[in-house]
């Protein structure tokens, strides 16, 4: 229950960190907040020869509105997002989801870049990145590139990064025309990883849905945007669409059974959460209090 020995470097620049992780030849690990990596080290499920700590790199923690997006530095902590007015105003679904991210002591240390890179299929931030269509900015030895969130997550605990690439910023587009939104999640214990979760947001014009955004997690090995469900909502005009929407979401997913619950339970759960989320989003979109 203690980490195996490793060499430790804490560079002062992103460039130096990239060089250090490249020099490790696939036997190094990036340390951001450490809230996923440290348990793996303690269990010795991960035994890297080198830890490259990002904590001394300046200007990696920020939340800024830039044009129609919110730019977030990779070392921004979950608690910074949870208590940010800028997030509450511009990314309300993220603001609603943040209290569900683990527990306060974890949120005080864990970072958005770390959570995305860890790519847990039942973690909130990967799902939010997919929901908002975020651009994940990474730097490697051959330069920088932007990766769409939907391409970033390959499977459970696996991202698409090359071994020498480090996430340094994430840009979340603001859904300016979406007046209604909701986030629903069920976990065994408040703050634990989700059994299932859904985010919904709606744009309504003259009593009809003209645009919708839907993403789910906990029901596949990566978070997923459900375009089929989004398309089905367009043109709908009544709050009782909720039941229909729940059915569609249920049909879109094929979760697996695990130690916690059966596949059938998860499927029913995501349908029920979809109905609830739709009703809340609709109520908000038409200007009432949910």
């Amino acid at each position, binding site marked *: 229950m203690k980490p*195996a020995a490793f060499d430790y470097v804490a560079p002062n620049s992103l460039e130096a960190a990239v060089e250090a992780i490249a020099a490790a030849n696939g036997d190094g690990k990036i340390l951001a907040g450490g809230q996923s990596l440290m348990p793996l080290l303690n269990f010795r499920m991960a035994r890297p020869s080198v*830890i490259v700590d990002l904590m001394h790199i300046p200007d990696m923690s920020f939340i800024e509105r830039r044009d129609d997006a919110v730019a977030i530095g990779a070392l921004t902590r979950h608690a910074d997002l949870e208590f940010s007015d800028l997030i509450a105003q511009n990314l309300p679904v993220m603001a609603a989801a943040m209290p569900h991210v683990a*527990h*306060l*002591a974890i949120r005080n*240390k864990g970072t958005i870049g770390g959570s995305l890179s860890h790519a847990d299929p039942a973690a909130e931030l990967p799902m939010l990145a997919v929901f908002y269509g975020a651009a994940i900015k990474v730097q490697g030895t051959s330069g920088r590139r932007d990766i769409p969130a939907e391409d970033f997550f390959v499977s459970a605990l696996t991202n698409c990064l090359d071994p020498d690439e480090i996430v340094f910023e994430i840009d979340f587009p603001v859904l300016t025309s979406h007046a209604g939104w909701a986030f629903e999640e069920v976990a065994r214990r408040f703050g634990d990883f989700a059994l299932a979760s859904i985010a919904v947001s709606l744009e309504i014009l003259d009593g009809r849905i003209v645009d919708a955004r839907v993403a789910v997690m906990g029901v596949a090995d990566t978070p997923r945007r459900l375009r089929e469900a989004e398309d089905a909502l367009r043109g709908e005009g009544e709050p009782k669409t909720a039941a229909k929407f729940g059915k569609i979401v249920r049909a879109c997913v094929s979760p697996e059974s695990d130690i916690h619950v059966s596949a059938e339970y998860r499927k029913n759960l995501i349908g029920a959460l979809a109905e609830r989320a739709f009703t809340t989003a609709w109520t908000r979109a038409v200007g009432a209090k949910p």
Partner: protein
Amino acid sequence: MKMDIGVTVNGRKYQASIEPRLLLSDFLRDTIGLTGTHVGCEHGVCGACTILVNGDSIRSCLTLAVRADGMDIVTVEGLGTPDHLNALQTEFREKHGLQCGFCTPGMLMTAMDLLKKYPLASDEEIREGLSGNLCRCTGYQNIVAAIRSVVSLRNGSAS
């Protein structure tokens, strides 16, 4: 590989030469002898090792001691003394908020941060805030009551 660190713990400065793999929880308990911080699960689930670093609650088992270089740490030993318990400790005693005492340091340090950051207007909110701390005596009821009592005193309405 050894590294030199300097940290302030409960107002006192400590210098040490440590291996980078040393956990902050083990640094506190073994290197400088402050055994008030308890170690339960060592993977961030039980909350017993919670301490304050620069005012924020964190899991000391999920951080490397080398990362605490230059930081200001408060452990349960820094909250009060047996003769002068702080308000939270006093209410834990009054409401019988501890049984075997193993989870108590983590509960206290977590509650210190919760009281600072959340209104804790309902017992549900207190319970959600404590959901990352396990008490295997299952004594949650009185822990919640103790925190409720601090909130009431703070809001000027005695419970």
